[in-house]
C-alpha cells in the first residue's frame, strides 16, 4: 500500500526519515487492530448455527455473562492485559520516535518553504476533482505531530496504571491508539478531505471513548452529544470545502493556499469560506455556541479527557485555522469574528469554571476558556502565538487532567474499598489531599501557575504572546483598519484585549480555587476512607513528572523579544515558512524593536495573574466547605453559574425537544402517517371502496331499479347527443 506513486521527488526531505511519514499514523493503527482483535477475541462467544431455534439459552453463557459483571466492580485483570499494554503503548511510542527522527531531519534540512508532500494513491479522482491519499509534512504539522505523539505516549503510559482493573482494557487501548492514528491523519493530511478523515475520525474516537463506560446511560448520552455537536461544526467544514472546490477547483492545501489571493481580499466569498471553516472549528474546539459537548465529555476516563479533550483533538480547530491562514488573512471580518468568538468563549467558560464542583468539569471549562485564547490568537493573525499556547496548553492541561486523574483514582480506590458510593470527582468530598498525594500536589501547582500566567511558567509566555498580539493588531494592520459589524476593527480588538485580561484574572481565581479545595484545608472524604488515600503508582506519576517539567520550561520554546532569557522566538522562526506570510499580512507594518508599551503589558498581565491568585487565597475558605451530600443549595448568580447559565437546558428546550417532538408529532404522525398515508394513500383506497360501496348499494337486487338505471343511462346518452 505504501508503494511509491509520486514521481521523482527533489524535496530536501525526500531521502530522509520523512519518507516514512505514512508510518506515523499506521503504527497506532496497527496497535488499534491488534488491541481491537484482542478485545473482541476475549469476549466473543460463538453463536449457535441456527439462532432462530428456540431454547438457545445455555447455562454456561449466562454464567459467563454474570462473571463479567459490572465493569467497575471487576477486580481481576484482563487476560490480555500484558500484551495490550505493550502493543498499545509501544505503537505511539514508536510513532513518537519516528516523529523525532523526522524532526531532526527537518532541522538538518534547514530552511525549506514548500511542504514535503507524499502521495500514496488515488482516493477520489473524477472530472476536475483530484483527491489523493497524500500526507504533507511541514513545520506546522511537525509541531502537531510531536505534541500528539509525545503527549499521547505519556498518556498511554499513564493509562496502564489508571485502567489496570478495567475489564475492557484492550478496548480502551484500541480506541486510544485509533485516536492517535486519526489525529495524525488530521494534521498530516495534504488536502482538506484527507484532513477531514482525521477530523471526523477523532470525533469517532471521542464518541467511543466518552461512552467507554457505556453501561451508564449518561456516559453514552455524552458521547452521542459530542459526536452530534461536532457534526454541526462539520457541516461548516464540508461547506467550506465545497466552496473552495467550486471556486478554486482544488482541495490540496498547498494549492488552496497558493490560490487564495485569487478569491479577492475581503470579498464576501472568502469571508463565507472562512466563516464556514471556523464553524467547523467551533464544533471541534468547543467554542460558543457549540461548546456544550465538552463538559459532558468528561464522562470518559480521565486519560481520555487529558489526551483528547485537552491536549490534542480540541485544538484541531486552532490547527485548521493556522493551516488555512492564507485564506483567513484574506478576510479581516472573518478573522475578527474568530477572535471575538474566542474571547467571548474564554470569558464565558471562565465564569462558569468559577462555580463548578466536579474537578474535571472545572478543568473542562478551563479548557474551553484556554481554547478561546488560542482562537483569539489565531484570529488576530498571530498564528505562532496561537500554536504556542496550543503547545503549552497541551503540557499543562494534560498535567492537570492526569493529576486530577490521580486524585480521582485515589478517591475512587478509597471509596471502593469501603463500599461508599459518594462522588469521587466532587471537590467538596476532597480537601487536604496534599498530605496523601504530595507529588500530585506539587505538580498540579506547577500547572496551575502555568495556566494562571505566572512567570516563568510556560503559560505566562504563551498567554502573554496572544494578548500582546491582540494589543498590537489593535494598533495597526489589516484588522485594525477593517470594520466589523459596523464597528472599527481596532476598537473591537482593544475590547478583546480587555476581556482577555479579565479572563486571565478569572483563570487565576478558579484554578487557585480548585487547588485550595482539593489539596488544602481539612479532608472531607470521610473517616474510613481517609486511611486508604495514597499516591498513585509510579507508572502514573511518572508521566506527570515529565509533563510538570514541560509545563515549567515550555515557555522557552518561544521567548518574546522583551524577555531574552534564551534564544528568542524559536517557534516563530520555525513556523515562519508556513504562517509567516499570513502573519505579516495581518500585522501590516511592524515597528521594529522593543517598545516600552510591551513591558507595561507584561507587567499588567503578571499583576493580574497574581491578583487572581491572591483574591482566591483571601476570599475562599476551604475549611468552611461541607461535603457534597451536606452542601446547601446556592442562590442568585452563584446558582446561575453552578448551573452553567442553564445553556444545556436552553438548548434542550429550544432546539432538541422541539425538533424531536416536531419530528414525531408533526412530521411522522402528522405528515407521514396522517396526511400522506391516511389521507392520500389509504384515503384514495378508501375513496375507491366508498364509491364501490355506494355503487353496490344501487345493486339492490330489484329488477325495477336496474331498469331505472338503464333509463337514466339512456337519458344521459341521449342527452349527450342532444346537448352536444
Amino acid at each position, binding site marked *: 500500500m505504501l508503494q511509491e506513486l509520486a514521481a521523482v521527488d527533489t524535496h530536501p526531505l525526500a531521502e530522509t526519515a520523512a519518507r516514512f511519514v505514512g508510518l506515523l499514523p499506521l503504527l497506532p493503527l496497527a496497535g488499534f487492530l491488534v488491541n481491537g482483535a484482542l478485545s473482541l477475541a476475549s469476549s466473543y462467544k460463538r453463536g449457535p448455527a441456527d439462532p432462530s431455534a428456540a431454547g438457545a439459552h445455555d447455562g454456561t453463557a449466562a454464567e459467563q455473562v454474570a462473571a463479567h459483571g459490572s465493569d467497575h466492580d471487576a477486580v481481576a485483570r484482563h487476560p490480555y492485559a500484558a500484551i495490550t499494554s505493550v502493543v498499545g503503548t509501544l505503537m505511539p511510542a514508536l510513532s513518537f520516535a519516528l516523529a523525532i527522527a523526522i524532526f531532526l531531519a527537518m532541522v538538518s534540512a534547514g530552511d525549506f518553504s514548500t511542504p514535503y508532500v507524499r502521495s500514496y494513491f488515488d482516493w477520489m479522482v473524477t472530472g476536475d476533482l483530484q483527491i489523493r491519499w497524500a500526507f504533507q509534512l511541514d513545520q506546522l504539522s511537525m509541531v502537531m505531530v510531536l505534541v500528539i505523539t509525545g503527549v499521547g505516549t505519556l498518556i498511554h503510559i499513564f493509562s496502564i496504571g489508571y485502567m489496570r482493573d478495567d475489564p475492557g482494557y484492550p478496548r480502551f487501548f484500541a480506541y486510544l491508539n485509533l485516536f492517535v492514528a486519526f489525529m495524525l491523519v488530521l494534521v498530516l493530511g495534504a488536502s482538506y478531505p484527507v484532513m477531514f478523515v482525521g477530523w471526523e475520525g477523532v470525533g469517532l474516537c471521542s464518541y467511543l471513548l466518552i461512552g467507554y463506560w457505556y453501561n451508564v446511560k449518561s456516559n453514552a448520552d455524552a458521547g452521542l452529544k459530542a459526536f452530534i455537536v461536532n457534526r454541526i461544526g462539520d457541516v461548516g467544514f464540508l461547506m467550506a470545502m465545497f466552496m473552495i472546490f467550486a471556486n478554486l477547483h482544488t482541495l490540496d492545501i498547498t494549492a488552496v493556499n497558493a490560490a487564495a489571493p485569487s478569491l479577492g481580499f475581503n470579498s464576501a466569498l472568502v469571508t463565507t469560506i472562512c466563516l464556514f471553516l471556523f464553524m467547523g472549528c467551533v464544533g471541534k474546539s468547543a467554542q460558543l455556541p457549540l461548546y456544550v459537548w465538552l463538559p459532558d465529555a468528561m464522562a470518559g476516563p480521565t486519560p481520555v479527557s487529558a489526551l483528547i479533550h485537552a491536549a490534542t483533538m480540541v485544538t484541531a480547530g486552532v490547527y485548521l485555522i493556522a493551516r488555512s491562514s492564507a485564506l483567513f488573512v484574506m478576510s479581516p471580518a472573518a478573522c475578527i469574528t474568530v477572535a471575538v468568538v474566542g474571547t467571548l468563549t474564554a470569558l464565558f467558560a471562565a465564569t462558569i469554571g468559577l462555580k463548578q464542583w466536579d474537578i474535571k468539569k472545572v478543568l473542562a471549562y478551563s479548557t474551553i476558556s484556554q481554547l478561546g485564547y488560542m482562537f483569539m490568537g489565531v484570529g488576530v493573525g498571530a498564528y505562532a502565538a496561537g500554536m504556542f499556547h496550543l503547545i503549552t496548553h497541551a503540557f499543562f492541561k494534560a498535567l492537570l487532567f492526569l493529576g486530577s486523574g490521580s486524585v480521582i483514582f485515589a478517591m475512587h480506590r478509597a471509596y471502593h474499598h469501603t463500599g461508599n458510593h459518594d462522588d469521587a470527582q466532587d471537590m467538596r468530598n476532597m480537601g487536604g489531599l496534599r498530605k496523601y498525594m504530595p507529588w500530585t500536589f506539587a505538580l498540579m501547582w506547577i500547572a496551575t501557575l502555568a495556566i494562571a500566567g505566572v512567570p516563568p511558567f510556560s503559560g505566562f509566555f504563551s498567554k502573554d504572546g496572544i494578548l500582546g498580539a491582540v494589543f498590537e493588531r489593535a494598533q495597526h494592520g489589516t484588522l485594525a483598519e477593517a470594520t466589523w459589524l459596523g464597528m472599527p476593527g481596532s476598537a473591537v480588538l482593544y475590547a478583546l484585549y480587555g476581556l482577555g485580561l479579565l479572563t486571565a484574572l478569572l483563570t487565576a481565581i478558579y484554578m487557585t480555587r480548585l487547588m485550595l479545595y482539593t489539596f488544602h484545608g481539612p479532608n472531607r472524604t470521610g473517616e474510613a476512607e481517609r486511611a486508604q488515600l495514597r499516591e498513585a503508582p509510579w507508572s502514573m506519576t511518572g508521566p506527570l513528572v515529565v509533563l510538570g517539567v514541560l509545563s515549567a520550561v515550555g515557555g522557552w520554546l518561544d521567548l518574546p523579544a522583551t524577555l531574552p532569557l534564551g534564544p528568542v522566538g524559536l517557534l516563530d522562526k520555525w513556523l515562519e515558512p508556513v504562517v509567516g506570510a499570513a502573519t505579516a499580512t495581518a500585522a501590516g507594518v511592524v515597528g521594529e524593536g522593543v517598545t516600552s508599551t510591551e513591558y507595561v503589558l507584561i507587567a499588567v498581565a503578571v499583576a493580574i495573574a497574581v491578583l487572581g491568585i491572591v483574591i482566591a487565597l483571601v476570599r475562599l475558605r476551604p475549611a468552611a466547605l461541607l461535603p457534597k451530600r451536606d452542601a446547601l443549595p446556592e442562590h442568585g448568580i452563584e446558582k446561575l453559574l453552578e448551573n452553567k447559565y442553564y445553556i444545556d437546558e436552553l438548548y434542550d428546550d429550544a432546539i432538541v425537544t422541539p425538533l424531536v417532538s416536531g419530528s414525531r408529532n408533526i412530521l411522522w404522525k402528522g405528515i407521514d402517517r396522517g396526511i400522506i398515508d391516511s389521507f392520500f394513500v389509504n384515503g384514495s383506497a378508501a375513496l375507491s371502496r366508498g364509491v364501490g360501496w355506494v355503487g353496490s348499494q344501487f345493486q339492490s337486487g330489484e329488477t*325495477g331499479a336496474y331498469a331505472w338505471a338503464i*333509463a*337514466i343511462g*339512456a*337519458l344521459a346518452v*341521449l*342527452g349527450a*347527443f*342532444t346537448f352536444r
Partner: protein
Amino acid sequence: MNTLVYTFHFYLFGLIAIASALAFVTRKSAVAAALWLVNTMFCLSALFVMLDAQFVAAVQVLVYAGAIMVVFLFVVMLLNLGEASEVTDIRSLGGKLTAGFVGLLMLAELFSLSRLKFPRLMGAMTDHANVVNPVSAPLFHEFLLPFEVTSVVLLVAVIGAVVLAKRGPKAQ
C-alpha cells in the same frame, strides 16, 4: 276531402293508441292492462294500413293481438294473477311522477334530436292489389339469411319453453 278524412282517421287511431297505452300502463289489473294493450295493437294495425303496409297490419292483428296477447292472458290466468290483489304492483306517486318526468325528458330529447327533417318523401307503393309481393320478394332474396335465422330463433324459443316450463325435480 279524402286527405282530410285520412288525416282525421290517422290522428284518431294514433290518439286512441296512445290513450290505450296510457290506460295499459296505469291499470292495476293485469287482465285489464292486457286488454288495453290489445286495443293499442289494433289501433296500430290500423295505422299500418294507412301507411300502405296492409300485409304487416294483418300479421300484426294475427300474431300480436291474436297470438302473443292470448298467451299473455293465458299465463296471467294460469298463475291466477287476474285479480288486482297486488295493489302495490304500481310504484307510488313519487315513482310515477319521476318516471313520467324521465319519460318526458327522454321524449324531449328524442324530438329535439329527430327534428324530422326528412330528405324526400317517396311515393307510396302503388300496387294496392298486390300487398304481399313487395314484402315477400326481399324476404326470400335479399333477406333470406335473416329469414332462416328467425327459424332458429323460434327453435330456441321452443327448446327454452320446454326446458324451463316443464316440471323438473322439486325446487330446492
